[in-house]
């Protein structure tokens, strides 16, 4: 699935880098959960893990105001158009994290004879980072967000952790 975003009107070398840096540090996710993994996503926003430390804790209910869609859970056939629509309605630049095995590939629900799910979020929207697990631990999601930051800024881990 190729990206559905175009280029801005103008480019400035340094400015772009600053923008990317800010974008990477302020990823507001869409309040959006599909199944079990959504609980771990909630947990990741809660006190023990606190996504807000990375500036990614501002869950916005409206896709217009969010930068990041965390597809957390199984995508059913019925839900898929809604996800595509929500993705479309997000304002560029926008990113997608596929959280959990279901969102990556259908996970445990992918088998022969399965008629109800879409095996993989990347079949319907462009996914930037995959976080495997069933469900992934909140640390996994944090890791995913850090990797997304790397991808946005094109310059490795921003902060040096131990």
């Amino acid at each position, binding site marked *: 699935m190729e990206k559905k975003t175009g280029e801005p009107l103008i480019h400035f070398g340094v400015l772009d880098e*600053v*923008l990317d*840096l*800010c*974008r990477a*540090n*302020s990823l507001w996710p869409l*309040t959006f959960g599909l199944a079990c993994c959504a609980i771990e996503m909630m947990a990741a926003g*809660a*006190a*023990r893990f*606190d996504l*807000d*430390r*990375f*500036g990614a*804790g*501002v869950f*916005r*209910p*409206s896709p*217009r*105001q969010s*930068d990041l869609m965390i597809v957390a859970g199984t995508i059913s056939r019925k839900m898929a158009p809604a996800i595509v629509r929500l993705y479309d*309605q997000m*304002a*560029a*630049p926008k990113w997608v994290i596929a959280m959990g095995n279901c969102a990556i590939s259908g996970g445990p629900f992918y088998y022969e004879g399965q008629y109800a799910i879409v095996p993989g979020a990347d079949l319907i929207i462009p996914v930037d980072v995959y976080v495997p697990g069933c469900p992934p631990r909140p640390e996994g999601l944090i890791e995913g967000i850090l990797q997304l930051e790397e991808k946005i800024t094109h310059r490795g881990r921003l*902060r040096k952790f131990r």
Partner: protein
Amino acid sequence: MIVALIGVIALVSVNALFLIWMERKVAAHIQLRPGPMEVGFHGALQTVADAIKLIGKELITPEEVDRPIYLLAPIVIFLPVLVLFLVIPFAPNLIIRDLNVGILLIFAFSSLTVLSILMAGWSSNNKYSVFGAIRSIAQNIAYEIPLLITAMSIILMVGSFKLSAIVAAQDKVWFVVIQPLAFLLYIICATAETNRAPFDIPEAESELVAGFHTEYSGMRFGLFFLAEYTNMFVVSAVATVLFLGGWRGWILPPVVWFLIKVYAIIFLIMWFRWTFPRLRFDQLISFAWKVLIPLAFVNLLVTALAIKLF
């Protein structure tokens, strides 16, 4: 004038950035977590990053909106923001224009906010927006009256609309001591006027997604955000002037005292937000009409009587 303008603009932007950071920090610590941590020292640059990101975000104009109004609404909500700072007395000589109608000016221009919320909600042609806007307005107008009346009891004691005169009248004792009920009413109304929890029905996300700005993206949404936090500053500043003796204080320079008081009230409002659940809409409205307004009137009359007697 230029200096004043630059000062106000700087204040507005720095204040909003600081308030949002503070809000997130306060919320986080109440909730046993650190809040923004990784962007700058203890997340100090977090809101800067947010702001710049918002500037670099696409502005979507949905098809079905009422275009001119949709585009105008965020600007209209920002219109009064700077003007409100004209009359706020930060210190005895740090007040841009000490107008005769000072406090009226604040109330008058604040009422523009209602109009722009209506514009934003209605023009979005989105059910959540329309509902959110209508509720927001019903709430704002319901709480504006007790706000005016409580402010009146202070004006009654001072006999002037000038904010500096109001501060000057508190040289012996702060009005919060004389008028605790009025202070309480004012804080409640101010919380409601700024659409903050527990009165945040208009943006109650569990019901109406994001309320009247559901369809706004990027910096347009940012302007609403900015205006909201600036309004919070303004109502707190007015509260400081009316009840907490404005810039009065010891040792520290007056400006510092003023800001300390303002941020203390803002902290109080934030504290409300992170403690209470949300009222239901009809409860909220009837609370204003049945409790706040009668109390405010009683307070006004009692004040008048007291002035007569003493």
